[in-house]
């Protein structure tokens, strides 16, 4: 019974990791930007959800589209007028700039909202149901369902729409994309916007389960990074699979090896995957 409970816990959390990494993987895959500010975007999404809940009483699931839209606009502007200036520069430079963006975002958040712990706690926050000896929290289940739906929508957009094709074309063959008239600067901005929107969604969902602080993003950037590499860079389905794998690994390690080991195992797993399958679980051979 414990085994099954641990499995469910891991899967429910893994979904959240998946959507977190999805945005990072997209931006990385298309533009070769390792977005260090990814966690800060998640933080921003979490705070937006919190304030809409706190000030207007808006249910966090209801306000999610607003959060997603706001983060899309924010991400679009950030790429269009800041990151596009250096997008073709060395990796180091983009790393530095996104790091700067992260520092600014965290400190502005601290100035505006203080370092107090915040919590989005709708009335149903702690509700659960039991199946035999298993206890399943409703919120986690809904959060999981939401991540799956959002990921699915996103995959469909990327695979089956003009916009998605343009993004993939830009990623695969920049010169050819330019020649066919794809407005690359715009596509880059849209891509970053989508990545930010996914981060925002992840933040809104994260805030329903865990406390929100200006510094919450740091460890989430790291988690997203691990998941993105684990699943296979640039493959969107890989991010989801990577998330589930990480969620399960953490859950099982905490239960059977002890709660100090999840990080050791997660990073050990990362190293192992990099040795055995350098392109990630679902990564294509190049």
């Amino acid at each position: 019974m414990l085994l099954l409970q641990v499995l469910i816990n891991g899967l429910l959390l893994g979904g959240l990791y998946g959507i977190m990494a999805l945005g990072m993987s997209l931006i990385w895959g298309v533009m070769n930007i390792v977005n260090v500010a990814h966690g800060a975007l998640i933080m921003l999404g979490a705070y937006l959800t919190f304030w809409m809940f706190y000030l207007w009483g808006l249910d966090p699931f209801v306000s999610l589209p607003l959060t997603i839209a706001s983060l899309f606009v924010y991400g679009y502007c950030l790429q269009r007028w800041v990151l596009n200036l250096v997008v073709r520069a060395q990796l180091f430079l983009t790393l530095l700039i996104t790091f700067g963006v992260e520092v600014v975002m965290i400190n502005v958040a601290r100035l505006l909202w203080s370092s107090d712990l915040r919590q989005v706690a709708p009335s149903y926050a702690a509700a659960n149901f039991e199946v035999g000896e298993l206890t399943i929290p409703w919120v986690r289940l809904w959060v999981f369902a939401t991540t799956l739906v959002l990921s699915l929508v996103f995959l469909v957009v990327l695979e089956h729409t003009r916009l998605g094709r343009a993004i993939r074309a830009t990623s695969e063959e920049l010169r050819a994309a330019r020649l066919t008239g794809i407005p690359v600067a715009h596509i880059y901005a849209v891509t970053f916007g989508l990545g930010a929107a996914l981060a925002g969604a992840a933040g809104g969902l994260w805030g329903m389960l865990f406390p929100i602080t200006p510094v919450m993003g740091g460890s989430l950037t790291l988690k997203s990074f691990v998941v993105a590499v684990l699943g296979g860079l640039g493959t969107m389905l890989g991010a989801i699979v990577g998330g589930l794998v990480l969620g399960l690994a953490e859950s099982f390690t905490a239960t059977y090896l002890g709660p100090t080991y999840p990080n050791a195992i997660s990073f050990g797993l990362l190293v192992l995957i990099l040795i055995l399958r350098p392109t990630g679980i679902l990564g294509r051979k190049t």
Partner: protein
Amino acid sequence: MTTRESQRRWGLFVGTLVSAILLAGGIAHAADEIVLGTAISQTGKYAREGKFYVDAYTLTVDAVNKAGGVKVGGKTYQLTLKMYDDQSDPSLSVRLFTKLVTSDKVNFLLGPYSSGITIPASAVAEKYEIPMIQGGGASGKIFDRGYTYIFGTLPKAELYFQSAIEAAAKMNPPVRTAALLFSNEAFDRSVGEGSRQWLKDAKIDKVYDEEYQPATQDFTSILAVIKTKNPDLILVAGHEENSLNFIRQAQAAGVNPRMMVFTVGPPTGDFRKTLGRAAEYVYGVTPWLPDMEIGGDIFKSARDFDKQFQPRFGYAADYHVASGAADVLAFKAAIERAQSLDAKKVREALAALDVETLYGRIKFESTGQIAMSQVLVQILDGKVVPVYVAGRFVNKPVYPAPKWSERK
């Protein structure tokens, strides 16, 4: 070549200028003021708790100055604060404390927040033989190195759960089994070590005993295991965020112990506000409550202190704040007793200090740590109610805590 040379010249020039300014700064405060230097977390992961100390130091220094300053040999000195931000980084903290001592030439040192930062930072105080009083680190590891210049106003980590475990054994029906969970930080490890001994003494069976990483957000797997052991008592040592996550997830997972105790969180107003009804019946420990009948010089009572503190900073003082205030007051008392600003003489006075303050009686053990026990409190109707103080019950706790599913 020439550009490199001129660059070097510039560097020399700027360097000289900076050191001249620093030197001037060092001389400038030699007048009628006593400078208390500190580096404390204003950014980074301890920014929240760090702010408690920044505000406590600020308020207390102002209050001491308003009441006439510090009197030494017929002369009155004003206290001033020299404060840096250690960004929650232990190695930066060491650099800043070294700077405070060597280039800012402060008279005395106030401590940083968290045991992890205090352990290296206090080594600087010891090396330069400048007394440091700190109210933010309680781990025994700070005090068991034979240092003589470090004093602390938080009770011993090993004693944190003593009152809770003692009370648990006296409940009706008594607690028989306990789960112990602590983060692998220096302080919480010491709490864990102490707790094992107290549990043994109280003849309570330990059915779970694990460490976790302080960055842990998700406790569901840990809770799943604890649930299978069904303990009467759960003891959790960690930071406020850990406590928040644990309680919320225990509720969602339907884990129902008779009693849940946390090292950090329950006495803080913000904690109760964030958790809302889920905080009900949770126990905490605190060395200090604003409605305790204690007081002394500068602040007539704990209540009086809170009355000055709350309107100025917009939140209620908790034990972190009171402990920080006690540090400044301990310096004032020791300097006046020593009748000198000499670091060695003030250290002697601190070691022999025995003074009543808003925080309680300040009397240091030979290790430098305050001799003080914890008050067990329970959250009832959103208020912090003292339950068990110094070996006896002062209020009736709600025990066993109602099951989550039976609460409104």
